[in-house]
């Protein structure tokens, strides 16, 4: 009986790996949980071990000036900085400010689009690691209805 349970468990695990909808072939990249659980932009920077970034107008942030609903704010990032390696999105006044950590390489144009949550009116910081240097730019988004309400 116990052996049967063991086998069934093993089969379930196996089928989870082989499930047609879930071809997660590689083990996911190691997650810096401290950065994603950090409660302030400063602790995000600290958790990621980031040096203070240099302000750069070469990072263009397209986002609405006023977002009716902070639960879904469209954001587009574009830069002409060469050799982009990483783009980080940070919502300054969110309880968990680190929103996304996107890896880049020369196969991708230095462009990224996402929809984010913003808890309240605040700056959206975009950090770009390019050619070993860290650059940042920010943009204020006015939020009418906060994005961290129940739902």
């Amino acid at each position, binding site marked *: 009986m116990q052996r049967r349970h063991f086998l069934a468990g093993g089969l379930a695990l196996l089928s*989870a790996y082989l*499930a047609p*909808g*879930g*071809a*997660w*072939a*590689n083990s*996911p*990249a190691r*997650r*810096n949980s401290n950065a*994603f659980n950090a409660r302030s932009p400063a602790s995000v920077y600290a958790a990621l071990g980031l040096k203070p970034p240099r302000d750069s107008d070469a990072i263009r942030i397209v986002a609405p000036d006023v977002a009716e609903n902070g*639960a*879904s*704010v*469209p954001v*587009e990032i574009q830069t002409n900085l060469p050799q982009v390696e990483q783009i980080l999105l940070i*919502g300054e006044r*969110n*309880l*968990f*400010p*680190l*929103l*996304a*950590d*996107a*890896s*880049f*390489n*020369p*196969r*991708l*144009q230095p*462009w*990224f*689009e*996402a*929809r*984010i*949550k913003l808890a309240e009116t605040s700056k959206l910081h975009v950090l770009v690691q390019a050619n070993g240097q860290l650059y940042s730019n920010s943009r204020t988004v006015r939020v009418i209805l906060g*994005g*961290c*309400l*129940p*739902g």
Partner: protein
Amino acid sequence: MNKFPIRMRASLQNDPDHTALIKVLLSHPMVTGLSKDEQGRPRPAHFITDIELSLNGQLVTRVQTGSGIAADPLFGWRLKGVKAGDKVGIAWLDNQGQQQSFETTAQ
């Protein structure tokens, strides 16, 4: 019935870099863990943590996400060196171990 359908398009831009504009719409509640349900019980965190983009089965890039990504997440990339008929794939994994993937043909 798939609880988490994925929609994805890879549109060739006919430029010298052979760029495909990739737009992905995932289905996911992206619950922060900070909110409460109608009965006032806390809703446990449930959000996508990892996303992988692939071309013809080869990993191109990954994004790590927190709960601050909007529900039913939308992502866009511009991938170079894509030909008509190439397979563009997306896969996600969430903090509860659920996962989903999808593939489309560039055109």
